[in-house]
């Protein structure tokens, strides 16, 4: 297949940035999207151009490092798929594809398609954990956990922290990310002692980072590669309200 790419190029945080057009030829439908970009980058390097910078690592959809807005959709139109898992068989020969970075004020562009997502780490620092120093844990079977709860906690815990939810949200809200962690821990007996203080600290940090508010548009869950459900946000809000009522 032959493709035309329109890619966001920005040399650094202070550069204004612009879209640049590239032609890519002989793309195999079995290639992954990132392999297609690898091929283009190899060419750019040899031509003495700056290759397109993008984050990636595991290339199997779990590290959360990659993320591009492809044709206006975070991670592309394929549902429940990270950019690295997207394959070229889903594109037509001759297609024109636009590729942009996550766009949100709390995720400043570092270079080209690479953004700074350290705000997510700070939200976790605020309370996304159970305080249990190594060596202090009781036997794992001392507290049985209902299978339904364990499974639901797992579903929320599969969040990979990629930031697609923020990129997709018209308000640039990080609610789905934050709610996923709050839900994971609040469904388990181990997470109960810190449940309300956790919700309050994490939500306050999310606001302090400059993420927007949630207006229930559901764009986040639609692009989430792990399908984190929207009802996690309701749970977060309810814990947050309870925490503030105290």
């Amino acid at each position, binding site marked *: 297949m032959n493709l035309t790419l329109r890619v966001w190029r920005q040399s650094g945080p202070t550069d204004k940035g612009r879209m640049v057009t590239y032609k890519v030829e002989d793309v*195999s439908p*079995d*290639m*992954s999207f990132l*392999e297609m970009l*690898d*091929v283009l980058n*190899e060419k750019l*390097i*040899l031509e*003495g151009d700056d*290759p397109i*910078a993008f984050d*990636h*690592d*595991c*290339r*199997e959809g*779990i*590290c*959360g*490092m990659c993320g591009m807005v492809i044709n206006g959709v975070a991670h592309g139109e394929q549902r429940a798929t990270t950019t690295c*898992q997207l*394959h070229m*068989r889903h594109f037509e020969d001759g297609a024109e594809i636009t590729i942009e970075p996550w766009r949100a004020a709390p995720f400043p562009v*570092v*270079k080209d398609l690479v953004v*700074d*997502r*350290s705000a997510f*780490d700070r939200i*976790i*620092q*605020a309370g*996304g*954990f*159970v305080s*249990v*120093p*190594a*060596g202090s*844990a009781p036997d*794992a*079977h001392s*507290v*049985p*956990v*209902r*299978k339904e709860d*364990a*499974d639901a906690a*797992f579903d929320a*815990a*599969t969040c*990979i*922290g990629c930031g697609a939810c923020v990129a997709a949200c018209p308000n640039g809200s990080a609610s789905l990310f934050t709610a996923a962690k709050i839900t*994971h*821990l609040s469904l*388990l007996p*181990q997470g109960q002692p810190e449940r309300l203080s956790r919700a309050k600290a994490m939500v306050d940090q999310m606001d302090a980072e400059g993420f927007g508010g949630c207006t229930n548009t559901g764009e986040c869950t639609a692009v989430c590669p792990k399908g984190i459900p929207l009802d996690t946000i309701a749970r977060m809000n309810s814990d947050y309200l309870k925490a503030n009522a105290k």
Partner: protein
Amino acid sequence: MKYTEGPEIRDTKAPSGPIEDRWEKRKFSAKLVNPANKRKLNVIVVGTGLAGGSAAATLGELGYNVKSFCYQDSPRRAHSIAAQGGINAAKNYRGDGDSIYRLFYDTVKGGDFRARESNVYRLAQVSVNIIDQAVAQGVPFAREYGGLLDTRSFGGAQVSRTFYARGQTGQQLLLGAYQALERQVAAGTVEMHTRHEMLDLIVSDGRARGIIVRDMVTGEIERHLADAVVLATGGYGNVFFLSTNAKGCNTTAIWRAHERGAYFANPCYTQIHPTCIPVSGEYQSKLTLMSESLRNDGRVWVPLRKNDDRAPGDIPEDERDYYLERIYPSFGNLVPRDIASRAAKNVCDEGRGVGPGGLGVYLDFRDAINRLGRDAVEKKYGNLFEMYERITGENPYDVPMRIYPAVHYTMGGLWVDYDLQSTIPGLFVIGEANFSDHGANRLGASALMQGLADGYFVLPTTIGDYLANGPYGDVDEEAVAEAEIKVRTKIDRLLAVNGTRTPDSFHRELGKLMWDYCGMERTEESLRKALERIPELREEFWQNVKVSGTAEELNQVLEKAGRVADFFDLAELMCLDALVRTESCGGHFRAESQDADGEALRDDENFAHVSAWEYSPDGPILHKEPLEYEYVKMTQRSYK
């Protein structure tokens, strides 16, 4: 490549006496650091995977002043995140005859008698605490309806001792460690440096006292000093270019420490995983693992006839060869990885492989779906099936998966003693980066166990003993400046070449060479060829590589070039190590050393030792550490 042999090396830290008591004994004899002093002691931990993340968090909890480094934009993205199948622990929750002793026994045997008994026993002991710790952190392991933890079986074991969180066990365990780490960042005990790559170790007065790193965003070269340094930088499987490792996995940190004096042990011990998605084309950038847990319910087969190009569904039962079940009736599809991989290679070499190029075998779930129902199979393996379909465009509920072996894990690594300390005092090495516990072959679900055992439980004790014996004085400014200059010089050299080939094109060629000559099967001839070819290719690299951009910016080409340069040097040592070890053991299969059935034939008389290589500009120096087995009798492994 010429090498010389130096004096034997011994692990002087493992206590003697009954094996059950050794770790208790060592813990008791380890000196303690006064709590008030801990705040004044600085420890650098490079790597935030299961090993480094858990170590940094725990050292922070203990009150040390910790600096943690990783090359990704967040510690949560370390390659451990990709582990799928599970983590072993000798909990014996099933009452199926498991015990610490059995896990110890299985691991020593699985490692083909090339691991230390003391280390492995400790690992089995500590495994129990890991599960407790993870559950307390909120790791959502799979559970049964009664609310208790579920387990599954894994290759090389006849008991069910593998704890799991669907197909995302590494992710959930790493998030547990990451959250503990971020808690310490908030508490001010850990200072986090993301997007920083370690490029050299600072050795002052013979002790590890810091590291030189490059800020991958600004390109700035920084120095960080400490009282001790911990490397938890993972494995070096990417020397093969194609592997199941994340793209950024590298050998740079451990290789540069090796150049500073840390011995490199058993570099040739590589694990080739039997169940990966086959290569689809030249552009392939990495290989994807299909978890070994699939072998619990999937059956491996190829057609009986050669070049049988019928669709799998059209091949009747009596024309299929379920070769693992046939050759290894007692372990069947659950034989250890090295055995399953070689068996797949053998049937493909016979011309019975399936799929493009005949480089594949079937992993079939038809019987499992009939027996358990599609729902049950989906619950267990849903995400893996999805992953497979995404990559290949085929649906494994209807058509059997096609799989082929791929490089997955490296048992070799920096040599460490029982305290996990390298031959450079003050340099500790944990997780996949060290060589310690898996011998010549690692059992499935044991890497996560080892990384967390090292990080949560072993290192925090042993490093305390080292630090309590300090202080070690001021760091020599000259040593720091020299390391910094060395790093800058290498970067400048890479940028100056301005040739006509990209770093990736060299890496691909090196990887292919390693796979062909130092892969699943090695011969004297192939290894000699590799040892001739690698220096030539390295020479070409330094004459003709093209690195675009500058050193003072985010430059992914420069990062890559630096890593490839180190892979060349490592590749050479791997081939030398493989050449010198003329026996077959575990993942190291020398075609010259096999029994009548084609199974790996060990040579205990000459090779019951660890090969620890010392770096020297005049060629490597080999030090042997003899291995003694007091508990598990050395036998030829049999899984028949």
